[in-house]
Each structure stands twice: as structure tokens, then as C-alpha cells.
């Protein structure tokens, strides 16, 4: 199959990607090519695509192993006669452990399984968070799955299902964690096994858990439900440590107070004061002086909804749905919220419509009503420019509420 004819490299254009002082996927695939014909053909097909400026991969069809509707991404090339070793080149998503903790033994085990059943190429990790096993044939899917499950691994999500939930390293190694991201991620994964393996939604749904607003797993941009740790009391300050930073040359006035987005900090050369009511939890000051400042102790998370990359429509960040939620086992509140959202979306969503898109289509007000969440000021990203207010509707709603309260004789706040 080689196109060299003894005249040098079969992949001159790809070889360009081996130059420079950084890792190269070409070099890595070449290493495997010595052992696996698949890898050699993969390189040659990619070289051909670069030359012709035509992609040769088809997508779709097969999706999983027996009983599953996700976890396998079917790949076929459209030149199977010329590239028979990669006529099928399916990808497996394997659910990673929360926070990506492994023993080296288990990593070797995964590699051994994949050497035996697939191309040997892995991607640790894909931007979905999963362990990505790249390239195998349909025949090898069940045996691979069997070997994985025998070692306590399971497939992740793909297609119109709950995608593999993912979490930052959180309290395992990070002092900023405002809730146990690893535990929540694992709990959501276990609780929603059915939704993960049996796609029943209009489109995909991803949970991402970040322990603090630094949002190391980019949940605000890359997940339908972003669960971002925060606190509602005061930033903890060690004034001696602040002074130490100052003595060591940190310009607190300019670089800490001056860069606070809400200008809610003051430094008089001796004490640092924070007007916590105006702090928007941006993490800037804490990141800049980690020895002196820490998040508060009344911690939980902000729940946001609706981020997505541009596929059907443009890119979008998540919007606040619940400004503060305590997150402790058994996490019923967030699970109930997710299920209410899925109910409305499954009932009313168009094919391939993400949660963020249906929110925009029906309007935030209607959406919140449908999922049983009260609108509050924290949901406003920025005030609108015109003062257009539906006074009438306002009064009607209040009247209705008053009536209802009377009926129920409720003294609930």
C-alpha cells in the first residue's frame, strides 16, 4: 500500500508536522505504524487528504455495543479498496475516572487491551474528558468492551444522550474546591446510567463540574449544565500574608485592587478590605495572592445552563439558572432540576436542538416557568438598553399569586 516506491517518504506533507520543539501526532502515529498496518494507512490517507483537500471519512451508523446506544463513534473511509486496514476505524469513548486518577497498572492494562483489539492509538483525554480509543473494526467492538468491563471500565456517552460527565481535580488536589466535584461527577454518572447509555434526548447533554470559578474544565463554554463552585460568605483574608506579598514587591493597589472587576477592594498599606457584597467571585485576587486569600466557608455551586459550540447555530456560554445551590450527597436538588429540564426539552425540543437553543427559542421567561424556577436578578447578564416593561402582565401575575396564597392560606415566605 506504500506510495513511496523507494523514493523517500510516503507522507511528505505530514512530515512537516514533525518539525519544531513540540509533540507531533504524526511522530506518534509513525511509532505505531511499525507495528500496525492500520496506522501506516491512516497516515497515508491523511496525506492524501492534505494533497487533494478532500476528507475521506464517513461517519455514523454503528453507535455502541449490545444494549448501548452510545460510546462508539462509527468511522468508515470512502476508499476501502485502497485503504483496507482502515475501512472501519471506529472510535470508542471510555468513561474516565472522576478527576482522571489512575494507577500506572490500569493505564498499561488499557493500552494492552487496545494493542490487542484496536490500532493502539489513544487520546488521553479527548475534550469530552473520555479516554479515547482511536480506530478499530466492527468485529472488535464487543471483545474490546468485554475486556474493558472485566477491568471495571465502561463506555462513555455519544449521540443524543447524557455525555460522560466530567469534573476538575477538585478537592483531591486543589484548595479552591467549593464542593466535591469528583463525588458529584461520579454520582451523576452512576445515577444517570440509563440516560447515558440509551439516547432518548433531542441531542446531547453534558454535565461539567468545576470546583470554583476558575472553571478548569471550561464548563461555562463546553457543557449544557455547568456546575461551578462558589461561596456566599466572605473571602477569607490573612492580613499578615497580604503584607508579606506587599513586602515582597506585589503592588497591591495596582495589581490586586486595580484589577478587581467591581473595584470592591481597598488597601491602605496595612490592611486589605473587601466589600464582599460587591464581589463577583471572579477569583482574580485569590489567584494572585493564594497564600493570603481563600474562598469563604459557606460554599456550594452556581448552576448554569445552555453552553454549546457552534454546530446548528452560533457558540453560546451558559446562563445562570440557580445562583447558589448547596451540593451535598445525595444531590437530589440538582438531579431533580436536570430531570425537569430534560422533560421539557424532550417534549418540546426539535431534532438536534440543544438545551441552550430551546432556551433561546422559547425565551428565558417561558423556559424558567416550564422547569419551575423563579426568575431572579442574578440571571440577568446585563441590563437591557430600553426600558420596555410589561406592566399589565406584572400586575396580573402578582394578583394571581396573591389569590393563590389566599387559597392555600400559605404563610410560606
Amino acid at each position, binding site marked *: 500500500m506504500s506510495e513511496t516506491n523507494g523514493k523517500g517518504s510516503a507522507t511528505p506533507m505530514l512530515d512537516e508536522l514533525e518539525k519544531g520543539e513540540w509533540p507531533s501526532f504524526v511522530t506518534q502515529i509513525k511509532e505505531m505504524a511499525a507495528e500496525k498496518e492500520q496506522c501506516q494507512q491512516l497516515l497515508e490517507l491523511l496525506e492524501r487528504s492534505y494533497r487533494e483537500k478532500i476528507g475521506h471519512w464517513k461517519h*455514523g*451508523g454503528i453507535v455502541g455495543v449490545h*444494549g448501548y*446506544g452510545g460510546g462508539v463513534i462509527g468511522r*468508515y473511509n470512502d476508499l476501502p479498496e485502497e485503504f483496507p486496514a482502515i475501512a472501519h476505524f471506529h472510535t470508542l469513548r471510555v468513561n474516565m475516572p472522576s478527576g482522571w486518577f489512575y494507577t500506572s497498572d490500569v493505564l498499561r492494562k488499557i493500552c494492552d487491551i487496545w494493542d490487542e483489539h484496536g490500532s493502539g492509538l489513544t487520546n488521553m483525554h479527548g475534550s469530552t474528558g473520555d479516554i479515547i480509543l482511536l480506530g478499530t473494526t466492527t468485529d472488535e467492538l464487543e471483545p474490546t468492551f468485554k475486556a474493558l468491563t472485566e477491568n471495571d471500565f465502561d463506555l462513555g456517552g455519544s449521540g*443524543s444522550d447524557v455525555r460522560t460527565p466530567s469534573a476538575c481535580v477538585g478537592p483531591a488536589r486543589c484548595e479552591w474546591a467549593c464542593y466535591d466535584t469528583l463525588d458529584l461527577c461520579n454520582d451523576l454518572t452512576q445515577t444517570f446510567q440509563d440516560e447515558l447509555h440509551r439516547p*432518548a434526548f433531542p441531542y446531547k447533554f453534558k454535565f461539567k463540574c468545576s470546583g470554583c470559578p476558575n472553571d478548569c474544565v471550561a464548563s461555562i463554554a463546553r457543557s449544557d449544565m455547568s456546575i461551578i463552585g462558589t461561596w456566599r460568605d466572605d473571602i477569607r483574608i490573612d492580613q499578615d500574608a497580604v503584607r508579606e506579598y506587599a513586602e515582597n514587591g506585589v503592588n497591591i493597589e495596582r495589581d490586586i485592587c486595580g484589577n478587581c472587576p467591581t473595584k470592591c477592594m481597598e488597601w491602605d498599606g496595612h490592611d486589605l478590605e473587601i466589600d464582599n457584597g460587591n464581589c463577583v467571585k471572579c477569583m482574580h485576587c485569590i489567584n494572585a495572592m493564594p497564600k493570603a486569600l481563600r474562598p469563604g466557608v459557606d460554599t456550594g455551586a452556581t448552576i448554569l445552563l445552555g453552553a454549546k459550540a457552534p454546530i446548528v447555530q452560533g457558540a453560546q456560554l451558559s446562563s445562570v439558572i440557580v445562583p447558589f445551590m448547596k451540593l451535598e450527597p445525595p444531590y437530589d436538588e440538582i438531579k431533580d432540576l436536570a430531570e425537569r429540564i430534560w422533560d421539557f426539552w424532550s417534549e418540546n425540543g426539535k*431534532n438536534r436542538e440543544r438545551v441552550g437553543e430551546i432556551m433561546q427559542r422559547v425565551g428565558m421567561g417561558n423556559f424558567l416557568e416550564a422547569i419551575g424556577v423563579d426568575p431572579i436578578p442574578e440571571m440577568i447578564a446585563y441590563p437591557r438598553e430600553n426600558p420596555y416593561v410589561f406592566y399589565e402582565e406584572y400586575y396580573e401575575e402578582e394578583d394571581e399569586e396573591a389569590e393563590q396564597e389566599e387559597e392555600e392560606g400559605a404563610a410560606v415566605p
Partner: protein
Amino acid sequence: MAVTAEQVADAMYDLVKEYQGKKKLKAMDLTHMMVERYGAEGCDKKMCKAAIRSLIDSDRCVYTYFGGSYIELPHAEGAAGGG
């Protein structure tokens, strides 16, 4: 009308068969069609979920992916052939 999950599974199977090659059905489509046929009282979402699971686990139907997830009769792999 009171129905069992197995009856719902059979009815779903007939629909998938009827639509095969004409229109791809999603889990949600099948659920809507069943609730319409049997009424929300006799056949709720939970029962439809159980019915779909039984269809898949018994190999009568398979999941497929074409830009979204569908439920179809088992057949030669979609993208393996021509299109």
C-alpha cells in the same frame, strides 16, 4: 387502555418496521406515538423507556446515529455501504 410494557414494545416494533427506509424514528418519536395511541394514563414515559430497553436488549431493534440517535431494525451498517 391499560397495556403492558411488552405490548408497547410490540407496537413500537411494528412502527419501526413500518417506517424502516422511509423515516428514521427517535426514542422520543416512538414515545409520543405510543402516548398518543394508548393515552398518557395507560402508557407513560417510564413504560415507553422500559419498552425501548426491551426492544434493544432482545436485538429486535438497534440504535443508530445519523447526526442524532435513532432506533431502527438491525441491518447492514449504515455508513459501511455506499452513502
